[in-house]
């Protein structure tokens, strides 16, 4: 087969539910996560954090802490690089406060000591004098004229004149004539929605072990979704040459976007440099909630017009996203994803990036998209109800497909939305009878997916097995799918491949494991690296046989003459070729470095049944089905796992999870007791349907699957709850007090 072919059938290993290679380590407790590393002479660190939402730091007195026996060093902002600008400055400012503490939990100093307990005690002895400033944490209030300014001059040129200084970026897109579109409609529904910030809720708190000497050469071990990004940012913040800092990614205990940023790594490095000792820094759960990167909170207005036959005539959305005390709330994704499932002639979306006294938001699974779907799909559901139309029929009627114009501009390539809708429609769940008190909801969801810088090496061993080095941390079983793709190409057993997540010294730059890019981009790179190795294998066989390289093909792990004209030779199996590789031209290594640009988008349709106790407002999700386009499922078990995980996180977001700030601007619920992620008894089994509409941009048709699964649940559950309760819920989470309040409002106002 040619080396740039697309393969769509006759897979031997791809598509199998193979056992993951790291399985044994993970079920026996041997796997080493962020907090599991030790180093001789290691110190333990603790961070001093602001108890104020907004305060000027007048003075930091470390003398009492330094006097405590066992304390070896204390750092403040003065121990980091100066002169940073733009995004790097924002990251540093978030990692360690400069002149002002900008949110409850903002780091202001850090201590290294000989034990964890001493470090914690010392942190309490650091005396910080604050001048408390007025604060704001709500998105709408942060935009109001009387809101305190969080940082002057943070807005970029996109922001129209006259906006509050807390509005730092503005987006507007769309096409057609929305007013004409609304005029064409038989019914226009307009409504406003709010969602609270949620947290990725990974079970492993951030942890790292840092070593940095006076020679400015460093070693860093940390749990991260992308260690090259950590290397780059830490080097900038500490004034190091990037290459002098080697970063190794530990096993990662969940990320979901939250471990794409750095929080503690530069601090541990600074402490190590100051103390000349290795420093371990592990966040507490409360620190994770207060001072890592939750999602944006939102306030949204949606207006959609529909004809009696279900045709959507126009859609308009305004999306205000609060992303903490720094620019970067993903409002443009919210805007671009909002109407992506629909083929609209007239559409307009507006986005505002708003700062408030909260931690800097970070990515969380399809950042910005779930909120958009919640608002838009709720309004579509309301239109369907009022016009007496079937919600799937309406979505099919308006669905985006190949050749239609996307709401954000371009013409769609091959996409699988219609296929997911049809599969949902014919799924037994959609026609199953509901019990008293239950309601059904459906929603579509969309995410772009991403390619990104990728570098992979595949080295053959003398026995014909292969070592595959990839640079994207394995957050959900990707070592298995990489090995499957390599085995498929090499024609050797899956077990003969060992996949390693290489450190920053071993491969070229690899972008973070985000954007659902790993199976797509590292997978593509793995296939290409394997093909490069196969090409060398074929050349070695050709040399041995004395025939032309092009006359050799690779099949089932053997080099063979391409046909009768090429000559009559017995197939040469891989191990025969690798055993002699030292004497036939040297080690055989395939590699691939590129920025693949063909990440196919992914659509999903979810169906959910919910039961609402109208006396208490409690909701129970009783049945859930995920239908999503995976392009090609390399390992269906782990594709299903992504579908189920996204749905479960969406259920939490919809019903109970939220950041609760008090009047004092402090986070009220920084423990799992009160930040209520779904527990096992909250959920039903989550049924899955894998739709496969191949992505033309990947050799096997892979589309990323990790993120799209969280886009539909918020809206699907809101639609189910609204149907069950008989009242539309417009604010997330749909907590019991909110549901009861909505029922009461309805009773009072008819």
């Amino acid at each position, binding site marked *: 087969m040619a080396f740039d072919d697309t393969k769509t059938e006759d897979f031997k290993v791809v598509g199998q539910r193979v056992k993951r290679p790291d399985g044994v380590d993970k079920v026996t407790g041997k796997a080493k996560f962020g907090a599991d590393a030790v180093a001789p002479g290691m110190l333990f660190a603790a961070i001093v954090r602001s108890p104020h939402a907004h305060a000027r730091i007048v003075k930091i007195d470390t003398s009492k802490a330094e006097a405590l026996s066992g304390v070896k060093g204390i750092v403040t902002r003065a121990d980091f690089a100066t002169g940073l600008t733009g995004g790097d400055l924002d990251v540093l400012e978030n990692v360690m406060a400069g002149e002002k503490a900008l949110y409850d939990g903002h780091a202001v100093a850090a201590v290294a000591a000989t034990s964890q307990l001493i470090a914690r005690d010392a942190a309490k002895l650091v005396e910080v004098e604050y001048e408390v400033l007025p604060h704001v944490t709500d998105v709408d209030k942060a935009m109001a004229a009387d809101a305190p300014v969080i940082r002057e001059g943070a807005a970029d040129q996109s922001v129209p004149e006259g906006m509050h200084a807390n509005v730092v970026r503005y987006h507007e897109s769309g096409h057609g004539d929305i007013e004409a579109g609304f005029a064409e409609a038989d019914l226009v529904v307009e409504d406003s929605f709010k969602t609270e910030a949620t947290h990725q809720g990974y079970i492993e708190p951030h942890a790292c072990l840092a070593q940095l000497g006076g020679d400015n050469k460093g070693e860093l071990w940390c749990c991260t979704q992308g260690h090259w990004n950590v290397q780059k940012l830490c080097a900038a913040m500490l004034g190091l040459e990037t290459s002098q800092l080697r970063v190794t990614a530990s096993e990662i205990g969940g990320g979901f976007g939250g471990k794409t940023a750095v929080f503690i790594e530069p601090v541990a490095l600074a402490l190590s440099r100051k103390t000349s000792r290795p420093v371990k820094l592990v966040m507490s759960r409360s620190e994770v909630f207060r001072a890592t990167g939750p999602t944006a909170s939102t306030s949204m207005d949606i207006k959609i017009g529909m004809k009696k036959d279900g045709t959507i005539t126009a859609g308009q959305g305004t999306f205000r996203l609060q992303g903490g005390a720094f620019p970067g709330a993903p409002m443009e994704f919210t805007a671009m994803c909002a109407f992506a499932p629909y083929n609209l002639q007239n559409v307009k979306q507006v986005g505002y990036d708003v700062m408030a006294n909260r931690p800097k938001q970070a990515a969380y699974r399809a950042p910005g998209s779930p909120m958009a779907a919640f608002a838009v799909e709720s309004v579509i559901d309301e239109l369907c109800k009022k016009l007496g139309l079937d919600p799937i029929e309406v979505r099919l009627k308006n669905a985006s497909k190949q050749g239609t114009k996307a709401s954000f501009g371009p013409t769609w390539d091959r996409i699988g939305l219609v296929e997911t809708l049809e599969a949902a429609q014919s799924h037994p769940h959609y026609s199953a009878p509901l019990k008293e008190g239950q309601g059904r909801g459906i929603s579509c969801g969309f995410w772009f997916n991403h390619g990104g810088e990728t570098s992979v090496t595949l080295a053959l061993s003398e026995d014909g097995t292969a070592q595959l080095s990839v640079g994207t941390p394995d957050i959900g079983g990707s070592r298995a799918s990489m090995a499957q793709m390599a085995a498929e190409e090499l024609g050797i057993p899956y077990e003969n491949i060992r996949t390693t997540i290489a450190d920053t010294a071993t491969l070229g730059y690899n972008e973070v494991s985000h954007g659902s890019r790993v199976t797509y981009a590292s997978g593509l790179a793995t296939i290409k690296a394997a093909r490069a190795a196969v090409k060398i294998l074929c050349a070695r066989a050709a040399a041995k046989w004395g025939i032309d390289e092009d006359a050799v093909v690779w099949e089932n792990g053997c080099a063979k003459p391409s046909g009768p004209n090429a000559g009559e030779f017995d197939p040469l199996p891989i191990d025969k070729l690798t055993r002699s590789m030292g004497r036939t031209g040297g080690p055989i290594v395939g590699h691939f470095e590129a920025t693949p640009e063909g990440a196919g988008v992914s659509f999903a349709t979810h169906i959910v049944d919910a039961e609402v106790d109208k006396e208490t407002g409690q909701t129970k999700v009783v049945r859930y089905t995920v239908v999503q386009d995976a392009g090609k499922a390399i390992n269906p078990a782990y594709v299903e796992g992504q579908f189920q995980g996204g749905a479960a996180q969406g259920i939490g977001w919809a019903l109970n999870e939220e950041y609760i700030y008090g009047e004092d601007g402090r986070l009220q619920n920084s423990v799992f007791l009160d930040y209520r992620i779904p*527990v096992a008894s909250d959920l039903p089994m989550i049924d899955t349907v894998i739709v496969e509409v191949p992505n033309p941009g990947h050799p096997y048709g892979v589309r990323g699957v990790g993120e799209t699964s969280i886009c539909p649940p918020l809206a699907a559950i809101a639609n189910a709850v609204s149907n069950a309760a008989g009242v539309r819920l417009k604010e997330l989470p749909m907590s*019991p007090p909110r549901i009861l309040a909505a029922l009461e409002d309805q009773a009072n106002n008819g």
Partner: protein
Amino acid sequence: MQYHTPSSFDDAVALAKDAQGVTRFLAGGTDVLVQLRADIVTPDVLIDIKKIAGVSDITREGEGWRIGVAVTGAEMSEHDTLGKEWPGLVEAMDLIGSTQVQGRATLTGNLCNGSPAADSVPAMVAAGVTVSVTGPNGERKVAVEDIPTAPGKTSLEAGELVTAVHVPARGKSGGDAYLRFIPRTEMDIAVVGCGVNLRLDGKKIVEARVSLGAVAPTVLLVEEAANAIIGTELDDAALDALAEAASAACNPIDDKRGTIKFRTHVAGVLAKRAAKIAYQRAEAAS
């Protein structure tokens, strides 16, 4: 922090009496350790009472029960007879935390933590449970409802500790129940809790105690709610009166777990539901 493991209550009292600074008794530790880790309370002296003889025993005391102060929720749930006589009390204890927490948490700890949202406390109050308290000035017996005085505060004097829990005789035709409202199905602190304990004569309720948790600074024993169902057969009118009395007794706060309005309303809903269960149990025991 000093850590002690006295082998008798007298030793425990002596340690507590002489202790300087913040003193805490350690039974299951499911509150003490959380407060320690979160820097809410770092005791100067921690007195582990689990090595005192008999603290892990559940024993008959007349027709009732004596429950040791270190008996865990799991041990209560696994007991042959206790839960048959006092299902509401055992279920209330069982609602606290996870399986793991059940392996450690105790009735006494739940009571002495002083939380108005403690699940076992309304059930104990409804059941008429008393505790023995020992201190420098000797021993006294106190009704459970008289132990908590405010969130995180109890009527125990310095150096005093609870040494046993006394559950009264179940007697004939009685039933109890405890229900709580939480947003999830597990792992939450009660937003509202309600315990009901009643006795029937035929179909008529002749005795009742109704308690509420998480709707006031302390767990409440609501006489008006009990009076609303005493003398009735728990018909709809009685249930409505019960709910109204329960809601009327509420004096809650707005916080991260619920609103005043929500708590007040749900207190009535739970009172009705718990009363129905207690009534059925009493009928079954007749």
